[in-house]
């Protein structure tokens, strides 16, 4: 077996930089771990100022007063790591998420597909590089050995057993996963390096140390292979982004939304999928999260298309209080249909039509854009429906007006009848049963109106012919 181990030592910084935070040469940024009161990650600018990992906040601030401080959060790092695993999954099958900041990939079963270690390695490295992650790496026969080498900043990849043994033997015991008590005990007898420890026979060690230590040592030697839970990509897309500052104006959410959409686009593109519905959730300190559902009239993947819709959607949105995080969920996916109709021009207009309807609905509201359809009623009021529930027999009439008023208005103009009468009796079973005699009447200006005389012989106007 051959495993590669990537120890991502500054995930929070990398994620911050990728989200458009301060670039490396601008301002010093450190990641501060509250519980341990120590700086755990520092960018090159901060290191130049003299800040080192392990320093307290006071010392760091004294060295560099304008340092930018990010909070350390194990879960956020883990999520960044999971996203990285999602990116790597199409390239490598066996991926192990180790703690919150390391990833192990089994290489030996992939070698035959990639044609050698070199080719495989470059594929993996270029993906990690494009993800913008800093890491230490190593390869070894097992996850344990590779982890030790990576923590030792080996940064070499090899499948040569001898050189791996040589590299391992140089590692110091403090870098192993052994507990401090064992390390202290070993130090007392002069064992300080892994090489010395590995030379000791196992049965002798077994008499003095716990089973865990022995298990670790055999794994380090490559004699046993502990079981690891392999990474499985999730069925739905979910990603949360903590905002680098509290946002009150929805326009300032757009860069974060854009970066979330870019990740969604990557996700969908890699899987040859499209989606027609995404949900944003804006998180606040006190209030319940605010859900924004965005529906496209047709499924698509491109970040550009979604962003255009969302810009319209949030234009009118008011945040109840400053937002601290935003998440994007996408649960419904649709495969890309390759039905080859693209050659016909009308296909493009179908796409354009759907895009247009999507845009109009996003800006003006869902109820603003309608498709008039013939309805299942012989009265003028029911002859047009805007949403068809099912295919019903449709009524139509030659004398239907172009426009129908919302409510009939009393006719108070001098008119001349030019067509009629047509008597319409509404459904006796409906509560507002009535009988109307319809006419087309013309006013002195030549405007033709649909007028009716009700059972009480009063005249009303209800529509107009354009």
């Amino acid at each position, binding site marked *: 077996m051959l495993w590669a181990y990537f120890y991502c030592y500054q995930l929070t910084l990398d994620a911050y930089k990728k989200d458009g935070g301060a670039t490396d040469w601008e301002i010093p940024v450190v990641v501060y771990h509250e519980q341990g009161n120590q700086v755990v990650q520092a960018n090159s600018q901060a290191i130049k100022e003299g800040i080192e990992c392990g320093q307290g906040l006071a010392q760091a601030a004294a060295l560099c007063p304008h340092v930018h401080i990010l909070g350390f959060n194990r879960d956020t790092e883990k999520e960044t790591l999971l996203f990285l695993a999602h990116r790597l999954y199409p390239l490598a099958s066996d991926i192990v998420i180790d703690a919150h900041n390391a990833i192990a990939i089994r290489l030996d079963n992939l070698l035959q597909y990639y044609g050698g270690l070199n080719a495989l390695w470059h594929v993996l490295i270029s993906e990690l590089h494009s993800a913008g992650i800093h890491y230490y790496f190593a390869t070894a026969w097992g996850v344990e050995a590779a982890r030790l080498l990576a923590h030792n900043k080996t940064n070499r990849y090899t499948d040569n057993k001898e050189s791996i043994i040589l590299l391992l033997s140089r590692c110091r015991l403090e870098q192993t996963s052994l507990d401090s008590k064992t390390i202290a005990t070993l130090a007392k007898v002069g064992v300080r390096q892994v090489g010395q420890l590995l030379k000791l026979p196992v049965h002798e060690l077994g008499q003095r140390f716990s089973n865990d230590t022995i298990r670790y040592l055999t794994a380090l030697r490559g004699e046993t292979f502990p079981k690891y839970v392999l990474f499985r990509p999730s069925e739905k897309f979910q990603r949360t982004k903590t905002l680098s500052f509290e946002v009150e104006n929805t326009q300032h959410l757009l860069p974060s939304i854009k970066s979330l959409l870019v990740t969604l686009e990557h996700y969908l593109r890699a899987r040859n999928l499209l989606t027609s519905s995404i949900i944003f959730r804006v998180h606040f300190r006190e209030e319940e999260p605010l859900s924004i559902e965005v529906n496209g009239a047709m499924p698509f993947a491109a970040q550009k298309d979604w962003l255009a819709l969302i810009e319209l959607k949030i234009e009118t949105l008011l945040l109840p209080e400053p937002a601290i995080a935003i998440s994007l969920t996408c649960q419904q996916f649709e495969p890309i249909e390759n039905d080859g109709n693209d050659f016909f021009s009308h296909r493009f207009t179908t796409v354009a039509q759907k895009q247009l309807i999507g845009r109009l609905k996003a800006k003006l509201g869902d109820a603003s854009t*309608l498709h008039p359809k013939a309805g299942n009623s012989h009265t003028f009021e029911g*002859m047009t429906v805007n949403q068809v529930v099912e295919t019903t027999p449709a009524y*139509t009439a030659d004398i239907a007006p172009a426009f129908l008023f919302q409510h009939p208005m009393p006719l108070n103009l001098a008119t001349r009848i030019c067509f009629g009468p047509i008597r319409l009796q509404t459904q006796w079973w409906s509560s507002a049963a009535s009988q109307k005699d319809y006419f087309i009447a013309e006013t002195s200006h030549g405007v033709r109106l649909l007028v009716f005389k009700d059972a009480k012989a009063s005249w009303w106007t209800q529509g107009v012919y354009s």
Partner: protein
Amino acid sequence: MNIPISPINETRSKAALFDKHPHIWRAREKPISENKFLLGTRVLDEALHGGIATSGVVRIASLTGIGEITLFKQVLTTHRAHKLRVFIKPPAQLQAPWLSGLGVDLEQVIVVLPKTDQEALWAAEQCLKSAACHCVLLWNNTMNAKAARRLQVAASHNDTLCLLFTSPHQQGASFPIALDLSLHIRDAQLVVNIIKQRHGWPVSNIVIPHSWTPNNHAIQSAMQNNKKTEPTLHSVI
């Protein structure tokens, strides 16, 4: 070395520049042939030199209900059948049977009901730019020259037609659009005034016979015919 340009030369070269410019039309020139949609009325089509332009904004100042849409029936129904006809902010609820009667495919009709005129203009511009529409029918009484210009550019660049319906009181301002019409009814006939058209002179008082609603003529003539034939019928019996 500088060549001195005499003032006469300069004016000549300017004149030549204007002569070549495609957007400057001189009254002595013949109308430029461009793609047109026939309206189906001979007198009007002749006055318009072959119908209305296939793209651009056409303003129609008229009362609602004098057959102002029916006048464009042929334009609405016969061209670019696979594209949308969008009705933006119609004066009242648009009726499906009437559209079917006109010959419009209901599948290709969208009604947009924006809350404000500003939103209506935005929607119209989006529709014109989308390349999905054959024709946008917009009802708006608060149009200004700048907005009209925007629509005209959006329409002509995307080969789309925009019919802009305004009330007759709105005629005052002149807009940079393809065609400006005003309609009214006189003695049961439709009178069209071409206030402004590209590559042509304004024409007033074009009277066209117009029928846009069913009438009782069939019944009346049938009854008259019946009266005539009654005696013969009796004689047969």
